[in-house]
Structure formats: C-alpha cells, structure tokens
C-alpha cells in the first residue's frame, strides 16, 4: 500500500472538501486559460478577416452590425443598398468591388447563403477543393466546415429559407445545387454557402422563372406593370433555366453590402470621402477601425476576468494551505500514531505532500476535461462568439 493510495483513501473520506478544492482549483484555472484563449482566438479571427477587408459600403446604421453582416455573415442587413452603387464604384476604377447579398440560409444547418460574384473568390483567394465554382443560376459551393458537418456531396441540393423566419413576403425558396466544396480557410467562409448574385436576386423575388404554359398573374406595383408566376419553380434545371428573368431597373436590384478592395490608399480615401455626408443613406466603414473599438472592450473584459480568476486562484491556494494546516491539526492523533508505531517524521510530510499532489492532479485532470469539453463545443473559438 503506497502513500498515494493512503492519500487517495483520505481524500475519498473527505470527498466534499476534496470536491470543493478540486472544483475551485480547476474552475479558476480553466476560467483563466479559457478567457485568454477565447480572447486570443477572437482577436486573431477579427484581425485576420478585417485586415483583409479594407472598406465596406452599406446602409447607414450600426457600423458593427455591418461588419458582422458582411464579413462574418451574422445578422441579415435590415435594409438593402442599390446595385447601382456597385456600378458607380466599379466605374470609378477604385479597385475590386465585390457585391454581397445575404438574405437566406440553408434550411437544415442554417448556413448563411451568400450571393456574390467571381470577384469575391478572387478577393478572398478562395478556390475549390473539389468540383467547380458556381457559374449558372441555382448553383452553389459550400465551405469546408459545411461539408464536414452535414455530409453534403457534390450534386446534392440544399433547401434555402429566409434568414428571418417572419419574412412572409419572401418568394418560395429554391433549392441550390452543390457544384463544389471550398478549401478550408479557418474563417467564416468555411461555414457559408456561396452562390451567384443572380441566384440571390431570385431569393429576393427580383427575378423568377415560369414553368411551361404559366404566364403568371399580372400585378401593378411601384415598378410598373409586372407579373408573378402561378406555380413557382423550386429547382432550377436545364429545362427551365431559360424561363428565368428579372424585373425592374438593374440599378435598383438589392445588395446588402459592397466590399471594396481599393487599388491604393488614395482610391480608398476618395471613396471614404464620398460617404462622409451624414445625409447620405449609405456609409463606408473601415472594418479594422470598428473591430479595434470592439476589441478594446473585449480586452477590458478579459482584464477584469483575468484579475477575477487570478484572485480566485490565489484564494483557492490560500484555502488549500489553510485546509492543509487545519487537517494536520485535526489529524494530530493520526500523525502521532504513525510516529508511535515506528513511522518516520518524514512519513507525515510525504502523506500530506501526496494529498496535496493528488488534489492538484485531480484539478489538472478536471481542468483538462473541462478544456476538452469547451474546445469541442466550440466555446473557445471566435466563431462561437462572433
């Protein structure tokens, strides 16, 4: 019977005190590690993504919401901006202008469906690992994480639904054909489904197709005389693709944001200047500045949490010392017995040392298990919080 076994037996006989110590030790240590890791992860995710996105044009409002929407694909934009803005930016030859339209998500895994152009793939340096890029109306590529978690294969169809469940005005959702799987980027694109901009406009009802013989019902709206199909098409095929068309002025087609990758600083400054006027319903933001403001708050919170966890850890260490001293006092007879039956004085030190070591070991194991659970649940990753 070893010292460790005796120490283990003693701790087991004091299970509530042991459990409290282990929980306190592992909890405060885990909090310290988890907070640091999460903040680092958020910082890294924010920094990497925003630094590669110099400028965003969107509807005036919350700058942070616009960043979350257009870079991290969170929260659909409350209002759209006209496609004409993209044409203006492109005409100014200020760099690469990328339109984004994000109104829908997949119905099963709720992955955001991003409608854009080839410029997005170029600007983000995205390439397919398997398959091809979406070229035709109704085609899409999926991010690496979407492929991993949903077991979706090339050739499968994804059902779409409006991002807002209360959007009753949205046309009947269509199915997207998966034609490619993107390389892993460890960013929001891994969780996204990316389709063509025109497909996005089908989602918003700007365009539609007709099945053979369905001329639709004529309507009068602000855009003038139009029509809607009697029987909406839910899957775009070679047979019906030619029936798809768009209504209204192309300049007014909706976008949720425009990502600008200026060719130089001068071009960026000129573009920013165009949107400085508070009366302009659109705004141009530099995401890095917005995120920096957010990170400052995050770091403040991290500092507070770190101080709290260090204090609690110090308190737990103090508690362990006090409990050890108390334990020695309470076990005076036990220690005396060991001495009387012929055990060395150092036996007591070894026993108490073993008990302390075991508490620290149990705490380390509990902390490791807790860390693995947090890690596997994704709480420590930036994507959980953003």
């Amino acid at each position, binding site marked *: 019977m070893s010292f460790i076994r005796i120490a283990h037996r003693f701790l087991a006989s004091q299970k509530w005190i042991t459990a409290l110590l282990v929980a306190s030790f592992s909890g405060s240590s885990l909090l310290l590690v988890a907070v640091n890791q999460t903040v680092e992860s958020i910082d890294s995710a924010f920094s990497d993504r925003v630094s590669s996105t110099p400028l965003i044009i969107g509807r005036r409002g919350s700058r942070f919401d616009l960043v979350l929407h257009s870079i991290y694909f969170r929260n659909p934009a409350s209002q759209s901006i006209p496609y004409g803005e993209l044409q203006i930016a492109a005409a100014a030859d200020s760099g690469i202008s990328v339109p984004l339209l994000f109104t829908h998500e997949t119905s099963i895994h709720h992955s955001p469906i991003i409608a854009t152009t080839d410029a997005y793939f170029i600007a983000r340096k995205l390439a397919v690992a398997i398959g091809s890029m979406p070229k035709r109306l109704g085609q899409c590529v999926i991010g690496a994480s979407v492929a991993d978690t949903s077991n979706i294969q090339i050739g499968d169809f994804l059902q779409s639904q409006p991002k807002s469940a209360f959007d009753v005005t949205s046309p009947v959702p269509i199915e997207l054909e998966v034609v490619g799987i993107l390389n892993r980027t460890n960013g929001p694109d891994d969780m996204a489904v990316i389709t063509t901009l025109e497909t996005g406009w089908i989602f918003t009802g700007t365009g539609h197709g007709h099945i053979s013989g369905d001329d639709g019902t004529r309507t009068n709206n602000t855009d003038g005389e139009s029509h809607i199909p009697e029987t909406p098409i839910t899957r775009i095929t070679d047979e019906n693709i030619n029936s798809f068309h768009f209504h209204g002025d192309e300049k007014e087609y909706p976008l949720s944001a425009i990502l600008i990758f200026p060719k130089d600083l001068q071009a960026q400054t000129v573009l920013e200047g165009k949107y400085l006027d508070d009366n302009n319903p659109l705004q141009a933001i530099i995401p890095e500045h917005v995120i920096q403001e957010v990170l400052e708050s995050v770091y403040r919170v991290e500092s507070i949490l770190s101080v709290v966890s260090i204090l609690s850890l110090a308190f737990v260490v103090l508690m362990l010392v006090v409990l050890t001293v108390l334990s020695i006092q309470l076990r005076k007879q036990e220690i005396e017995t*060991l*001495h009387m*039956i012929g055990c060395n004085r150092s036996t007591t030190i070894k026993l108490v040392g073993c008990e302390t070591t075991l508490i620290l070991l149990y705490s380390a194991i509990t902390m490791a298990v807790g860390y693995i659970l947090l890690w596997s649940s994704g709480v420590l990753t930036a994507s959980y919080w953003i």
Partner: protein
Amino acid sequence: MILTISNLTFQHDNSDFEIAIPNWNLDSGELCVLTGASGSGKTTLLHLIAGLYLPKAGMITVQGGCTADLSEQQRREMRLATFGLVFQDFRLFSYLTAAENISLPYNLSGSSSTNPEWIETLSETFGITGILHQRAATLSRGEQQRVAICRALAGRPAFILADEPTASVDSECRDTILNTLRTYCEDHNATMILTSHDPSIRDSFTQSVDIQDLQHSEVSES
C-alpha cells in the same frame, strides 16, 4: 534480560505526576500483567519502555541497548523492529480498511518484517477474515480492538506492549485474545507487558506486578 529498568524517574512537562522505579527486570519470554489504578502511570511506563518518552533520570535498557542513548530515528527503528504496540484507544485509521491498518506501519516504512501469509494467519486466529476489507470506521469496538492487536503482531515483535487490550471485548473474545497473545509469545519466545484492570486474567501470566509496588515508596501520585 530483555528489559532492565534502573533508577528510573520520569515526569511529564507541566505536571506534578512522577514515576520512579528503582529496579525492574524482565527475561525473554516472560508474560507480565501490569495492574494499577487509573492514572497510576501504566500507559506512561509502556511509552517509556517503547522509547516514546525518555527518562528524566535512570536508565531503560531494551535488548541490551539503552533507549536514552539512541537517536529518535534509532528509537523509531527499534519500535518497528522490536515492539508490538496495542493502544488503549486502538488508534486505527478510520478511512483505511482493516487489512490496510494491519500492514500500515510496515508498508509506510518500507519494512519487509511482515508478509501476507502471516497476516492471513493472524486474521483467522482473531476471527477478522470477513472484515479485512471493511473500513475501520465501520467496525465495532471489539472488531477494532482485534484489528489493533493484529497490527501489533504483524511485524512478529519480540516485545509486546499491550495497553488494556481486553477492555472492549466480551469474556469469550477476551480469552481468545489472551490465549493468542500467550501462544504467540510462547512460539516466538516473545516478552509481553499487558496492562489491565481485570484481576481475573492474572493467572495467565508469569508475572503480575502492581505499578505502585514497582515505584519508590517515597514517590506517590499527586
């Protein structure tokens, strides 16, 4: 002589109580019952012989070695190698099993004085085989006492110091304990000093001594 006491005096710190024994000898294999009123110093004398206390004056010699001349480490080694101690209050570790309590001193000291077969024999003799894997806290007083005696014998000691080992057991169990201790001493030529209030057990011993008779006539308990 396994034990020689000469001109012994001892006094606890902050206490007026004093033990004074001019002369007392025990041969190997002797079985001695030490009687005396409560508080007369029986337990203290056992502790002095075991080297747990050192005399204020005089000398205690065990197996030819004077306890006062030994270092604390040597006295510890002497207790482990020579003595089997049975305490009045058993002093078992409540969170360990009976088996773990029995082998505790030898396991913690890395001593090879005991072996599982011997412990098994002792367990059978004392009728505690069925409770070996029970925690000491769950045992009755009688069972705890038998476990404590087994622990004392586990290292095959040459000298048993038993402090009231039959105090908590019925007469049948008392006879078993006394017979077992006596048989052990006979088989191993071991010496035993046993303290007791029970006058009926005196016949089982080769020597019966009242501690008052051992002490100097001028010294008395205050």
